[in-house]
């Protein structure tokens, strides 16, 4: 199960965060800070998984943004890594060559899209086409 998803910039600014567990609200910024500082300090040729507390963090950098997912320790890492990529592709399709600024100024859109890709900490839809259909249908209402 995915416990949390967050996007941080190279400067450590949070661009999106979503939690799927009852992780206490006040501890969330600290958790993100801790994980971010580990990830930002890692070299580029290292693997995309780190262990943090009893969780695994799967992350991937796209340009200036790091996409991070905290998942259960026994989750399939590569599976999660490709969920991240799927989300990025969906964003890309929606924004057309997405960049960090798109996500900064349209963070609410990013939330809409995320909610169509993930639900209950699970992958909800793996078809990019299907997600795109739903999002554009929403926009029409």
């Amino acid at each position: 199960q995915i416990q949390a998803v967050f996007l941080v910039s190279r400067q450590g600014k949070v661009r999106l965060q979503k939690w799927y567990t009852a992780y206490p609200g006040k501890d969330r910024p600290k958790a993100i800070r801790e994980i971010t500082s580990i990830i930002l300090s890692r070299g580029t040729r290292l693997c995309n998984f780190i262990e943090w507390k009893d969780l695994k963090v799967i992350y991937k950098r796209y340009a200036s943004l790091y996409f991070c997912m905290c998942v259960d320790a026994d989750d399939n890492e590569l599976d999660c890594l490709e969920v991240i990529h799927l989300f990025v592709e969906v964003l890309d399709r929606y924004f057309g060559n997405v960049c960090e600024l798109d996500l900064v100024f349209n963070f609410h859109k990013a939330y809409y899209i995320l909610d169509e890709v993930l639900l209950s900490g699970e992958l909800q839809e793996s078809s990019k086409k299907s997600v795109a259909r739903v999002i554009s249908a929403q926009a029409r209402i």
Partner: protein
Amino acid sequence: MALSGMRGLSVFISDVRNCQNKELERARVDKELANIRTKFKNDKGLTPYEKKKYVWKMLYIFMLGYDVDFGHMEAVSLISAPKYAEKQVGYIVTSSLLNENHDFLRLVINTVRNDIIGRNETFQCLALTMVGNIGGKEFSESLAPDVQKLLISNSCRPLVRKKAALCLLRLYRKNPDVVSVDGWADRMSQLLDEREIGVLTAVMSLLVALVANNPDAYWNCVSKCVRVLERLTRSQDIPQEYTYYGIPSPWLQVKTMRVLQYFPAIDDPNIRRSLFEVLQRVLMGTDAVKNINKNNATHAVLFEALALVMHLDAEKDMMAQCVGLLGKFIAVREPNIRYLGLENMTRMLMVSDVQESIKRHQVQIITSLRDPDIRFRIIFIDLLVQCISLCSIRRRSLDLLYGMCDVTNAKDIVEELLQYLTTADFAIREELALKAAILAEKFAPDLSWYVDVILQLIEKAGDFVSDDIWYRVVQFVTNNDDLQPYAAAKARDFLDKPAVHETMVKVAGYLLGEYSHLLSRRPGCSPKEVFSIIHDKFATVSTPTKAILLSAYIKILLHSQTVDPELQNHVLAVFRKNETYLDAEVQQRASEYYALSRKGPSMVDVMAEMPKFPERQSALLKKAEDTEVDVADTSATKLRLMQLTSTAVVVADQKPANGVHPALTRVPSGQRNIEAPTVPVANGGQSPAPVDFLAIEAAPTHSAPESSPLVGPGDSLALALMDNQASTVQPTGSVTEWFDALCRKDSGILYEDPFIQIGLKAEWRGNQGRIVLFLGNKHTAPLLSVKAVILPPRHMQLLTSNVPDTIPPRAQVQCPVEVTNLSPSREIPVLDFSYNNSSAMVSFKLRLPVIMSKFLQGATLAPADYIARWKALMGPPNKLLQEVVRGVKPLPLQEMSDLLGSLHVAIAPGYDPNVNNIVGAATYFSENPTLCLIRIETDPADRTQIRLTVGTPDTSVALELKEYIKERLVDIPSGAAPTSLPGMPSPADDLVGPAASLAGLI
């Protein structure tokens, strides 16, 4: 630049972005929060657009990591808005801003329910999404039936149904009762026939959770899952949009294989065959491709397939194929695949039910580690090391090392680690050092190598060597006499090197203080030289190190055989100087040592070598264990770690047998009971003892205890278990045998029955001893009314600590007892023990092995000295007690000599010209130490009789000691009177007696 579509929001975001620093940003955010607060308080109310805008701003601020502690109500209230645009904002912001336990959520349960059961599909989706993301227990109870209806409805669109499936998953996680097992197994099975991949993926996620909790209920889903896999792997009927880089939904494949891993076994041969065909197909199609996403997706499926194969306990060929694949993976450059290859290889090594097939490969791997092709070996170790350097892979590698390291390859691995240490990232050096130390300890082919490794470790990475590491080496050296000169010499060598690390100064200072006198004959190792080489460092080291060095100085001074006045002056001057040192500890040591050293050699005892340490679990291993995360899938790792731990015990006070150091003897892990890993857990932080104090297995011997009453404390056959008639609980072995064993060694079992095990560990020093009783409850219920009373004989002072009234199930309590021997006596203390096992009261009395020999210490005298003392004892007055003992166990001379040795008498071979005689000496410690000389004259013609002579200045000691030795030698110690009463031997006897023979020596 894409804009948010809300000008106010875009402006605010821009403002925040333009803030130069954190303070300005906070000021801007605070300003905005104040603004929003005012707006929300405004009675006139806000337009829906304004409300949306402010709620989004709140979310943005919250996302940046600031506290937003107001306005939640406004966000929640938007959920009840009639229009989609507001409702959507309400749902999304609420589900991001609030935690599932927030009170406000209760207020909207009804609205949410109405949206779910309503006709508006878009509202349904919004409601299901929020509940799926943050629904708590209350949502579970009120919404589950409605959500279930949507999932199985024929009229709903796939979009709604997949959301319903995942929403139900959330509700089930919050409260498993919402899915009744009976009805749902069939429903799930039907749902697996779903053709729409989106819905099927969501259903499969739900199934993973259901099956994880209750696999038995969902057996009917197994064949369906296999069919789904067949469909996917054969690419049948998969719409283009559900292939990912050409792979039919890798996520669905992974989830389906995950489901199958929760079923204990798949027995149906047809299903099994189909499944293996699928797996075979997956395992075959694994060629690496250039596209990283395709590669990842393929390997995601592949690793899941590997896990399933391991779980299914597949045929050997398939396992071999898997190991082969893993071997390939750990050699690739791509770090993710290598990480996972390593992780799975480790799992493979841990899977016990496929051990046979693994073992073959393990051997192969280890052999390749020792491959004559050095390049291959380097590549392999390099791989491990590299993996360790990839930070997150560290623990995996360590697991793998644990799995693969053994005595034959440990040297290679540890030495490579040492090599690597100097170039490794700073961030991981401490961990590397720790792990190298652990592996060195665990797999040391001999202890001197272990010492070498640790000293090198300190030399190469002193900053990263924690105190635990050097404490451990000190512990080893202290407990192993043979090691002491070696370690001291090594330490001295290291001090010669330029730029010695402070940790090295500490450990070398300590070791040289304790043991440099063992080297005093070597060149460059005279006390004076050792002192000066240590003292060179004194000025530059920190205060705690100074304190250690001061202790070293006084030990060097007082350990040296002849006092070197020059050295003494030096040392005294140093103490003098530091009497006014700023730090209180250093100051105190300096003053005390100054005073002590001025008292001269009479203080030698005060500064004697440190006694042996009680055996204890390696603090290092404990450290490693503590960092071990408690997750289910590493339980095998833990189990293994524990097995290793339990064998890495340093046994103090045991002489090396057969050239094998007890510290390094290992129990093959296979010999341990499978339940054994629960033992260290129950032990808590207590150190593992040499005997498994909570062993679940019963002792092999089941000899029923004889039940004669205690004759007398000195009677070695007197039955220890005295009033066993009182209960029906029988010991699981022979109490007498246990007692006898404890007379010879200092740790072991004292008593054991089905409920309790009493272990004992003792340390002796002079006339003092410390016994620790380990009371282990083997039972699953607590032992109540536990009482342990020790009845001390008159000559002994015993300080007993309190025993708790109750011993919890599977727990162990320790009960230390301090013993002081005041006068010579063969009497021994008796432990009166009772407990209630909740069905009956059990009580028994046990003799404690506080026998005379525990207070004896072998004394070595030069021949001339020996004879002089013997003569002095001859008197007048004559202090030699002599007795002809008959009915002696007929032993060869050597065995008798060994027996005497086992009583801690130092045998002096050759001192007596008559080869049939054995002489020896020992110091007996009671209030005052007494030197005892002992001689046994044997008759080669009649091995059953001897003449025993014991001489001491204190006749009471001689009397007791003679009787004591006699008891050990006599075959059947009985109440029968000794053949001759102890008393003054006649002078005539003396002329032909021991003195005469000894006189011949001169």
